[in-house]
C-alpha cells in the first residue's frame, strides 16, 4: 500500500481541472484517477502529468456522463481500490444561448451535461464517502448559476442546479468528516471560452484560477469564487431589483 493522496477528476480534459492536477502533482506525487469521455484526449492529459510527476500513479477511466447505472458502476469501481481523498467534478460545456433557444435537444443536452451529470457523480461519491465518513467532494459550478441572465440562462440554470445541490449536500454532511466545496469560476481563459477570447473578452488565466481552487479545496471552504472579485460582482447582480436588472443587457 502507498500513502499517496488519492484524487479523482471527473472531466479531466477540462482545462481548469487539468491545471488543478498539475498543481497537486507539483506539491507531491499522488494517486490520480482521470475520468473522461474521449480516450485520446485523456491520454494526452495523463501523458503530460506522468512526465511532470513520474512518481505519481495515474489511471485513466473512460466513462459515460449521463447514464445513472453506468455512473454508479464506475464510481463503485473507483472506490473499490481505496478511499478517495478528493473528487473534483469538473466536466461541462458552454453553449451558445441562441442554440438552446432554437433547439430543445441542444437545450436538454446543456442541462444534462452541466447540471444533471455532475449531480449524479457527486451523489454516487457521496454514498461511498458517507460510509467511511471521509473525503472531499469539489464541484465546479459557475458564477452564471447565481442569477439567470438572458445571455446564458440555460447554462446558468444547469449551474444553478449544481449550486442548490451543493448547498443541500453541505447541509447533509455538516459536522461529519465529508467536506463539500462549491467552486464558482468567472470567465476563464480555457478552450471552452476560446470563442469569447476571439471576440476580445478579458478572461482570467487558468493557472491563477486553478491555484485558487487548489488552495480553497485544501482549506475546505464551502464556496470559492475565482477570481475572488466575482463574489462582490455576483452579490450586486443578485440584488439588483428587476426593474434595473431588466434594463441591462448582460
Amino acid at each position: 500500500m502507498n500513502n499517496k493522496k488519492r484524487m479523482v477528476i471527473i472531466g479531466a480534459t477540462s482545462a481548469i481541472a487539468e491545471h488543478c492536477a498539475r498543481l497537486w502533482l507539483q506539491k507531491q506525487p499522488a494517486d490520480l484517477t482521470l475520468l473522461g469521455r474521449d480516450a485520446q484526449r485523456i491520454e494526452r492529459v495523463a501523458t503530460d502529468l506522468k512526465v511532470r510527476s513520474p512518481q505519481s500513479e495515474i489511471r485513466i477511466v473512460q466513462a459515460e456522463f449521463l447514464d445513472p447505472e453506468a455512473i454508479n458502476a464506475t464510481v463503485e469501481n473507483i472506490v473499490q481500490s481505496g478511499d478517495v481523498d478528493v473528487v473534483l467534478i469538473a466536466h461541462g460545456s458552454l453553449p451558445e444561448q441562441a442554440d438552446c433557444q432554437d433547439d430543445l435537444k441542444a437545450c436538454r443536452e446543456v442541462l444534462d451535461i452541466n447540471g444533471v451529470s455532475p449531480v449524479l457523480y457527486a451523489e454516487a461519491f457521496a454514498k461511498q464517502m458517507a460510509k467511511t465518513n471521509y473525503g472531499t467532494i469539489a464541484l465546479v459550478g459557475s458564477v452564471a448559476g447565481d442569477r439567470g441572465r438572458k445571455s446564458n440562462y440555460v447554462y446558468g440554470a444547469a449551474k444553478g442546479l449544481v449550486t442548490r445541490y451543493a448547498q443541500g449536500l453541505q447541509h447533509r454532511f455538516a459536522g461529519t468528516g465529508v467536506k463539500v466545496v462549491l467552486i464558482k469560476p468567472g470567465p476563464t481563459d480555457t478552450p471552452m471560452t476560446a470563442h469569447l477570447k476571439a471576440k476580445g473578452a478579458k478572461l482570467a488565466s487558468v493557472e491563477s484560477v486553478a491555484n485558487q481552487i487548489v488552495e480553497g479545496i485544501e482549506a475546505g471552504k464551502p464556496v470559492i469564487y475565482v477570481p475572488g472579485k466575482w463574489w462582490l460582482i455576483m452579490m450586486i447582480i443578485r440584488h439588483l431589483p428587476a426593474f434595473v436588472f431588466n434594463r441591462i443587457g448582460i
Partner: protein
Amino acid sequence: MKPVTSWGRLSADPHHVVVLNDPSKVKSLVCHGAHPGVAHGMGRSYGDVCLNSEGVLWVTTGLDHFIDLNDSTGRLVCEAGVLLRDIQRLVIPRGWILPVTPGTQLVTVGGAIANDVHGKNHHVLGSFGDHIQNLTLIRTDGEVIQCGPNKRADWFAATVGGVGLTGVITQAEIQLRRVSGPWLDTETVPYTNLDEFFQLADDSEAAWEHTVSWIDCITRGGGRGFFMRGNPTNVGDRTAPQSRKLIMPIVPPVSLVNWLSLRLFNMAYYHLKKWQTGRAITHYEPFFYPLDNLLEWNRIYGSKGFFQYQSVVPLEVGQDAVQAMLKEIARSGDGSFLAVLKTFGNRRSVGMLSFPQPGVTLALDFPNHGERTHKLFERLDAIVRDAKGRIYLAKDARMPTELFEAGYPRLAEFMKYRDPGISSGLSRRLMGS
C-alpha cells in the same frame, strides 16, 4: 476580431484569433483557410514577426503538454506551446537544463525555434535550434513534416529561424544538458570603454560559459558598462530567492523613458551596480531572466510603444561599428536603457534565416518618437550595412528590404520552403507576401 499587440506595442490591429488547443485538431484548423495566418505564441517578439493585421493568428499556447522526458538521456518531447519556464522548472530539479535560453523564459518552444533564439552562452552552445533533434511541422496544405538535423535537414534548416513561415510547429524534441543545480558562479566586472569590453570578452570566452554586458550608451558618449559572466556550479541545496513579481499597472500616456530619466537611470544603475562587482553565487532565474519578475515592463514606453534595434556585425569591424553606433545614438539625444552588448561565438547557425553569426551583437530599446526615431535607425542601418552585418527579425518592425536581403544571403534558398497559406506582417513587409 481582437486587437493584438506584440512586445513592442507599436500597433494593436485587429486579428482573427484561432486558438489551437488540441494537436489532433491543428490540421483541420490551419488547413485551407480562406485567409493566410501565422502562428502566435506568447507574443514576446518585438515587431511584426508574430502579427498578421486583419488576418488570422493561430495561438499556440494551448499546446502546452509534455509528451516524454527520458531522465537518463535528457531527451524531452513536448508540444510547441510549452513555455521555457515550465521546462526549466520541471527539468532542473531532475538534473537537466535547457542548453540555450533567451533573456526571457516566458516564450514558447515553437517561438524559440521559429526565431532561433540565442542566449548568453552562444560561444559555447550556439542557438536554440542547435539542440532540437526533431520537430513536427504542419503545412496549410495538410502535409505533416517531421524534420531534424539528420532527417529532411533542408526543411529543418528552413524552419529553424524561419519565423513561422514554413508551417506551424506543433511538437519538438529537445536535447537537454546535464546540470548539477540551479546555481551559477558569476562575476560582474566594470569596464570603462569598448577596448576593455572586447578584451574582457576575449579573455572570458574560454573559461566562462555565459557572457553578456550592459552598456551605458549615454554617459560621456557611451562605452562604459558591466561585463557579466557565469558558469554553472554545484553548491548543494540552498534556498532559491523569493521571486517577488511587480507589475507595471498602466500604460502611461508618454514614455517614462526620456532624455532626463535615461541620464538619471544610467547614472544610478552604474553606481549601484558598482557595489555588486566581483564574484557571487546567483540563482539561474535572476541571472538569465532579469526582467521576468517585472511583468508588462514594456508598458513603461507609453502608448506609442518602442522599438528594439538588435544588430550583429563581424568582429573585425565590430569595435568601430559599435563605436559609430554609440556616437550616432549620443548625437540623436535618444537613448536606450536596456543596451546589451555581447560577442557571438565563431559558429554557423543551423537556420537559413537564423540571426546569430560570428561577431558582436548590440541590442537597444528606443521609445517610439516617430520620424525622429526612424531617422536615427537609418543612420544605424548605414553602419550595419557597411559592416556587412544584419538585423534580428524577432526584434524588427522597420528595416528596409535591401538591408534584409543583404544581411540574409540564404533568403532565396529559404523562399522555396515557404508555406503559401502563411503570411505575417514581417513577411509582407520584407518578402512581398
